[in-house]
């Protein structure tokens, strides 16, 4: 079973925001919810690099660990999903997430921020695959149709890649070798660990919490 991951090749990313609008388009994500975003480091200076960032679907997701109602689940592919039926909008996942991925419909409503929303790796939610309820709550379920996340599929320079971590690692390494240098794939080690040299992520392994 593939272990689904994201990899953003900083050498390739040109901050074109295709990933962001592809996500908005595919899931009809409302204004103000940024499931995916672009961050530019060293803006305007030599060494400027941009990174597309969303939920990285970590091996050992901190969001899931800190959720007071235990609403997260990790599929056999390693995709981190959550149940909006269970979510109470407490915001703890944002505290724990290294990547600022969780989004909330409201900023302040005396403590109730609405159901958390985040990147689903285009894998919908706990509802039956392709159901209307699933689409309304979480957006499209491309994975169930044999397709990968649209952000990565539409990336203008193939900087953002999504799919089997082993394949991504291989592509990235081959690419870096070919160009002679690599300026990194920020977030990868934070999400998938330092020793995770493309080894497939075993379901039920230490990172899944038994899922």
């Amino acid at each position, binding site marked *: 079973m593939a272990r689904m991951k994201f990899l953003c090749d900083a050498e390739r990313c040109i901050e074109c925001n295709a990933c962001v609008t592809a996500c908005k388009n595919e899931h009809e994500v409302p204004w103000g919810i940024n499931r995916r975003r672009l961050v530019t480091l060293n803006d305007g200076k030599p060494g400027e690099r941009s990174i597309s960032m969303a939920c990285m679907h970590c091996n050992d997701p901190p969001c899931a660990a800190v959720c007071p109602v235990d609403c997260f689940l990790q599929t056999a592919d390693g995709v981190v999903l959550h149940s909006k039926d269970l979510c109470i909008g407490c915001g703890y996942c944002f505290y724990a997430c290294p990547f600022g991925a969780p989004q909330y419909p409201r900023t302040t409503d*005396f403590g109730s921020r609405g159901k958390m929303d985040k990147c689903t790796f285009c894998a919908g939610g706990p509802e039956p695959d392709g159901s209307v309820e699933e689409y309304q709550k979480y957006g499209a379920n491309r994975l169930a149709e044999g397709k990968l996340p649209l952000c990565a599929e539409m990336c203008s320079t193939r900087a953002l890649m999504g799919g089997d971590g082993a394949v991504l690692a291989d592509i990235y390494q081959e690419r870096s070798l070919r160009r002679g240098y690599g300026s990194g794939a920020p977030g990868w080690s934070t999400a998938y660990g330092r020793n995770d040299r493309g080894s497939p992520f075993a379901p039920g392994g230490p990172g899944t919490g038994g899922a």
Partner: protein
Amino acid sequence: MRPTRLPLHALLLIALLAVQSLAASTFAQAQLTQVPGQNSPTTKEQVPLYVPQDDKLIGRVSIPDEKLAVLVQPEGREWREWRTHTLRLAIAGLAIGMTAVLAIFFLYRGTIRIHGGKSGRLVLRFNGLDRFAHWTTAVSFLLMALTGVILTFGRPLLIPLIGHQAFTPLAEYAKSIHNFVSVPFVVGLLMIMGLWLRDNIPEKADWTWIRTAGGLFSKAGGQHPEAGRFNAGQKLVFWSIVLGGIGMAATGYLMMVPFAVSGIGGMQIMHVIHGLLAAGLIAAVIGHIYIGTIGMEGAFDAMGCGEVDENWAMEHHRRWYQEQLRKGYVEGRQPAE
């Protein structure tokens, strides 16, 4: 507009600067002819998959949501450790520890009796307003403590019992109660401050009280150090509640309006403060409840009906009692001359 950098932990900023200068130097290696340098990998396997420094990265975003300019915040890991372990350990440890200590103490000392027995004459200790303030604070504190405990411990303790479907509404209510009950708590807090602050200013005599531990361990009884309206132990509780309460309210409200005054780093710190204060206060309140109920005969009356027995007052708050006596507030006695 693109936001500026958020002020965050100075230490991490220093680390960030180090990372960026490192990163800049690697970018600078990409020269015109793109000839691989000496340290460039020669096989695919040598290419690392990540930037080895995965420290905080802050950049610029075009969207107005400035907090999203933080690309990677590794402190999330420490906060997670806090939230999943340290916090639970602190609350449960202190609460259980306090209960255990009290239990042992109870076994050793039992209920502290009024040494001279009940006189039957009553002294007014807390009037209606006093009691209203106390109970407003107390009830809202207990509610918030309970709901806080549900949110903190519900996942390991309640979900296995009642299941996810039932726990979510419980948690949802718990969260709402926790948030809304904070209002009466703050009102109560302000009231008790207004009413009792003057009597809780530490004084020299408190030192004696503390040195002798208030005579709690003298089994013979009646060996109470002198005390005014509030003894040092009570002052300790008062200041714990007041200062802790203010701290909890401040951090709590700031967390209710996320990102209003700080970035995620500040909110994590606020949550830690909130949690530590909660742990301490819960333990303190357990002690307070003990001594106010089964720990001591006659103590509950002070907050129950507001009047205490003359002997109790004499034993525990001699200075205050004498003052009351002087003012003629003791039932059935003439003001002393």
